[in-house]
């Protein structure tokens, strides 16, 4: 496994989120979010449950439609096209094409249980990119190797541990060579002893030049890997900045009280 397959320090993968709003029924979960994510950087979003972190992440690949505002990736609008003075939603086909540039890793893995680890990884390259099966297979094995699971290529997800399943899910997200990778609480469903094997894989990815946006509760990991930490609460961004500033010297009272509750137990390790 060489580093040649890793993307060079990238100029692609700039995410600009502008005044994004989203409601579920009467509850407004995103109240005008504006955020710029630098290409090749690692942005970690933290905050209490229900603060809108996951919803924000899911708007980035249009799994969740915004009610207002817009998101652009490398200057291209996500899910919409400007026509006159309106934003027209793209057709399904065009949205799928955009999504192929954005990998996503879910809290509950969402691996396809009836497909083997390798089939999970090769499905999208064959169907969505039209690669040959042999080529996709070779590349799939390479990716499984990268997450340390080449020898488990023919196992079905239920035959794997949670940590292994999440690593397969990461390999699957990488298979389309995305410029951006979204992680939605990738370690929340894992036993504590399995968390590190997944975090180690993400740490490796952080060096590869792919833009990473990570929602997590692992504060130690956030401090370690993030270029920027974003703290969200009640649908708003309260504070953002480099991890040393945010964690050691938070400016807002809300940030301070949140960290005082979550960081202490995390340092027991």
């Amino acid at each position, binding site marked *: 496994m060489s580093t040649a397959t890793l993307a060079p320090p990238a100029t692609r993968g700039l995410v600009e989120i502008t005044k994004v709003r989203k409601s579920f029924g009467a509850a407004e979960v995103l109240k005008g979010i504006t955020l710029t994510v630098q290409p090749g950087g690692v942005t970690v979003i933290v905050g209490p449950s229900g603060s809108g972190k996951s919803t924000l992440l899911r708007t980035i690949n249009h799994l969740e439609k915004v009610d207002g505002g817009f998101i652009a990736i490398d200057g291209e609008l996500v899910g919409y096209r400007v026509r006159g003075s309106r934003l027209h939603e793209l057709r399904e086909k065009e949205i799928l094409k955009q999504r192929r540039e954005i990998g996503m890793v879910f809290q509950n893995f969402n*691996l396809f249980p009836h497909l*083997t680890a390798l089939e999970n990884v090769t499905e999208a390259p064959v169907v969505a990119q039209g690669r040959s099966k042999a080529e996709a297979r070779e590349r799939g094995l390479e990716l499984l190797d990268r997450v340390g699971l080449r020898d488990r290529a023919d196992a079905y997800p239920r035959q794997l541990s949670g940590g292994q399943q999440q690593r397969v899910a990461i390999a699957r997200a990488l298979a389309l060579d995305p410029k951006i990778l979204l992680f939605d609480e990738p370690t929340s469903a894992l036993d504590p002893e399995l968390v590190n094997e997944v975090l180690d894989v993400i740490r490796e990815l952080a060096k590869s030049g792919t833009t990473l946006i990570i929602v997590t509760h692992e504060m130690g990991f956030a401090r370690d890997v993030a270029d920027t930490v974003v703290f969200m609460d009640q649908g708003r961004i309260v504070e953002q900045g480099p991890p040393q500033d945010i964690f050691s010297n938070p400016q807002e009272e809300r940030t301070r009280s949140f960290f005082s509750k979550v960081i202490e137990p995390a340092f027991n390790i």
Partner: protein
Amino acid sequence: MSSAVTSVSQSAPEPAAVVADRTTRAAVDYADYPLVPAPRPWRWVGTAVVALGVAAVAWSLATNPRWEWGVVAQWFTARSVINGLAETLKLTAISGVLGFVLGFILALMRLSSSPLLLSVSWTFSWIFRSTPLLVQMLLWYNLGYLYEKISLGIPFTDVRFFEVQTTTLISQFAAAVLGLTLNQAAYSAEIIRGGILSVDQGQLEAAAALGIPAWRRSTRIVLPQAMRAILPNAFNEIIGLVKGTSIVYVLAYSELFYTVQVIYNRTQQVLPLLLVATLWYVVITSVLSVFQYYIERHYSKGAVRTLPLTPLQKARKFFATHAPVRSLR
């Protein structure tokens, strides 16, 4: 529990030494002792009672002359019976396939967000599940009474591409297929819909996030997983359909059941001939059950950690592990 422990310590003069010895190694090596399973007397009693019952039923079947096994054997492979069987299989296959295809379309309509498609699908299931199959059959066969001619053209205009007398179009066969298919579609739509709903929403989301197109999402991701919920019910339906075809006798259509009726009306050997039909239905159901087993096993890939052994593999394993017994012979 605690009393047992104290009694042990009382009987042992040097408890500390005994405990220490046990934790290191037992005094005697039991590794080569043969293992004896616990006695299970009630299992033997149960086995004996059931065996006796089975033997009694078999004995009465074999020895009671009124079953007339000779007559059964004589008609079992008779040409007319085999022809009737072929008709039954043909009806089952055609209305089974058409019924499930139509059912699949109805299930998708029912899951659609268009209120018109949804309510048409709902109404279809409602009507065909609430009318007896027998009535549907007779209704289709007598369609000529309601509509003298059937034509294909542009609605609300006089343009007609094609027009035919209803009675020539709706033969007994056509009425039977129509009735069985539409009835089957109504039931299978619900089964397929239930299967699709049983698949976790996260699966669709993950597929969408990977940019996999909608049709492929359904066929490659959702349906294979839905099949696990669909198959047992679907086979129930198909087995029901095999026997359901016997209702076609009201149209005097010469499938298996009607053929047998014609024969016993002539020969007066009612029970043996009903037995002929029954045995054929048993054969068909048995074959279908074997298919069901293997198809379900195929779709349980990934749903269970290790696939259960097939009966064939079990038999092989049995002979492999009992090899010493064979070598003794």
